[in-house]
């Protein structure tokens, strides 16, 4: 007997009042997209529940994918059987055998009141059936290794055992779009992940400065994006040719303010991309107090150039917490690859940790940066990173 269902439980979405319909709809669509490769698998909704019907597919790979879909609180493998006590017995026994457990508890719930056995009665019948037909298992009603839930509903009976925790959060896409400033370091992918967890659909922007930054740094950003795609839908990455503008900044602006100015230019370009793409906010990996550009004064000065909301999911986190998440989402190993990026080259010897708006405005007013900014925007290359986007470059060799 094979598991034929995965039962999906929504987390905080259940609290969303009238909007709940659109959230559930989004979750169902996101799951369908993710499971496209499993041709027979179907995502179904019945009476306030969501199921993945396996239709013969192995459950493990599907569970692995579901665990990365935001909006799912937990999931369980389930048998669906007719409302027939013998069939229920058989499936319950199978569920126990498949669980990695020594002690168990049966929790039956009768929703279909026409079913001849009450919940308590079911617990006894099924518990006894399990004990008689197995060895080495014992009942533990307080702290069982596994709780086997039997739910007799109108249409069928569902038998589930383990609860597998999901990714939590809200379905990607339900909270609108944001543009992530993606450098290649540890922080920005984590910021993107956390935004996605709150239902945000991302696009990403990366500033590329060849020959100061290499092809590898660019690839790194695409690889990081691909990891994020694992948690949502495909992501557009806008690669900005930044060399000329960056050189200009470092030529025209005094060393101590160059970094601040560079960040301001990045925000300006990012805002322009937002306008083009109908995106309503920026997301960054900034964190208070980490480095010179991330002091309160710095944020104040840099933020002056845009009135778009800037989402900073990491602002109050410790570095160690950020690193933990990056390891969990598998971006850490890519992030620490030692390639130069736009923030690590041209590092001034003593960047201003307390830059001021009046000063930088005066400095930037001495030179017209607009042509180079516009040139950078015009030269943007946009790449769609999808779960499928496989390298075709080496097809003749592999």
């Amino acid at each position: 007997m094979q598991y034929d269902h995965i039962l999906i439980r929504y987390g905080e979405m259940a609290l969303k009042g009238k909007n709940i319909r659109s959230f559930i709809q989004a979750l169902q669509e996101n799951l369908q997209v993710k499971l496209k490769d499993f041709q027979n698998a179907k995502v179904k909704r019945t009476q306030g529940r969501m199921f993945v019907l396996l239709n013969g597919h192995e459950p493990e790979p599907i569970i692995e994918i579901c665990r990365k879909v935001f909006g799912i609180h937990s999931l369980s493998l389930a048998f669906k059987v007719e409302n027939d006590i013998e069939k229920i017995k058989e499936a319950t026994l199978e569920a126990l055998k498949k669980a990695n457990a020594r002690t168990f508890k049966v929790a039956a719930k009768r929703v279909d009141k026409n079913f001849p056995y009450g919940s308590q009665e079911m617990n006894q019948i099924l518990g006894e059936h399990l004990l008689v037909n197995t060895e080495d298992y014992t009942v533990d009603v307080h702290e069982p290794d596994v709780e086997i839930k039997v739910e007799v509903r109108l249409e069928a009976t569902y038998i589930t055992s383990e609860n597998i925790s999901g990714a939590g959060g809200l379905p990607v896409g339900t909270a609108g779009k944001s543009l992530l400033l993606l450098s290649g370091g540890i922080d920005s992918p984590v910021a993107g992940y956390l935004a996605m967890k709150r239902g945000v659909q991302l696009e990403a922007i990366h500033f590329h400065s060849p020959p100061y930054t290499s092809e590898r740094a660019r690839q790194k950003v695409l690889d990081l994006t691909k990891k994020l795609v694992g948690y949502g839908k495909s992501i557009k990455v806008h690669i900005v040719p930044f060399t000329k503008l960056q050189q200009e900044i470092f030529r025209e602006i005094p060393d101590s303010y160059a970094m601040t100015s560079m960040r301001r230019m990045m925000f300006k370009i990012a805002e322009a991309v937002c306008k083009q793409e109908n995106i309503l906010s920026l997301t960054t990996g900034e964190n208070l107090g980490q480095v010179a550009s991330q002091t309160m004064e710095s944020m104040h000065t840099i933020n002056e150039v845009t009135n778009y909301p800037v989402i900073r999911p990491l602002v109050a986190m410790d570095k160690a917490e950020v690193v933990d998440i990056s390891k969990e989402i598998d971006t850490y190993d890519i992030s620490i690859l030692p390639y130069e990026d736009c923030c690590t080259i041209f590092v001034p010897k003593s960047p201003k940790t307390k830059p001021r708006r009046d000063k930088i405005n005066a400095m930037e007013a001495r030179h017209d940066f607009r042509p180079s900014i516009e040139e950078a925007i015009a030269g943007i290359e946009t790449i769609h990173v999808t779960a499928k986007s496989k390298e075709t470059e080496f097809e003749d060799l592999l």
Partner: protein
Amino acid sequence: MIYLDNSATTIPDPSVIESFQKTTEKFFANPSSIHQLGGATEKLLHAAKQQAASLLQVEPNEIIFTSGGTEGNNIAIKGIALEHQNRGKHIITTATEHPSVDEACHSLESLGFEVTVLPVDEEGRVHVNDVKEAIRNDTILVSVMHVNNELGTIQPIEEIGKLLSNYPKLYFHVDAVQSLGKVPLDIQRSRIDLCSFSGHKIHGLKGTGILYVNKQTSLFPLFHGGGQENGLRSGTENVAGAVSMGRALRLIKEKQQNETSHLQLMHDFLWEKLENMDGVQINSPKNGAPHILNLSVPRIKPEVMIHMLGKKGIYISTKSACSSKEKDESKVLAACGLPREIAVSGLRISLSYNNTQEEMERFVVSLEEAIHEFKEVLR
């Protein structure tokens, strides 16, 4: 030529050779070099790793490119032993392993390790219960092959893995050199920590292979140096070898998906014919791998048989090629409890997807003729 010694090595696929040659010519740079050529080469190496990982359903950072099965087995076994010896010095393996597992395990005895060699039944199969009983507090590694190279016996890897999941500190190594592309193996479900594969057994090139190392498994490296391959195998990467391995793996996996029944049909045909052939005894289990068939023709020296068939352009082998330099009986057949007369006369037929039904028919006729000639002489 009828080549039926595919478990010793296979005929390299022309497209694999082509991929090796093209890569050697075009991507000669050191992948660690910072310049563009190095970057492109590194990217290619990474693509090869990614492809191998997705075909084996593991993650790219769990793939270590090696020079083949023997190296993979040695990195795995000695690497675990040296890294985790403070936890215990007991290793469990079986009586029918390839010498590269067997010898690697026994070499550790001189460093104070103890090796338990599990018996097998008459079909060469190890029993999960024996594994269970052999596990001690100081056991750090269990090494069991997936498909036996001489008999084709399939070991109950998934069951052993299930048992071992009750011992989270114990590492599980599987030598899957003979099964790759022929007998399915689910690395995740079988809870395997280390798994060795070889390129030249799947129409790839000698000197290529893969060791799967679960990302939570730490090993003491046998080669120290520049830290290539996650620090487990320092030395400039054999990019062309890795790429050719990636292609060979893709090709064999495609065949496994579409042509398994072809192998099985040839196997079943041989079985039926040999079973009814006078003077022939089949040593392989009936439910073994579809590409290996071991038989004995008692009273006829196997070498003589090999040469006779060789004259007709048919190539088969005695016991495993790696052990055939030692004389005498097959260790594997002896471990199955077969009488000496059988154990010294084992012949192995090993198939590939490229063999044809017509070749099977010709082989059967030639074998029958050869036996007949001998009988005349011996009478």
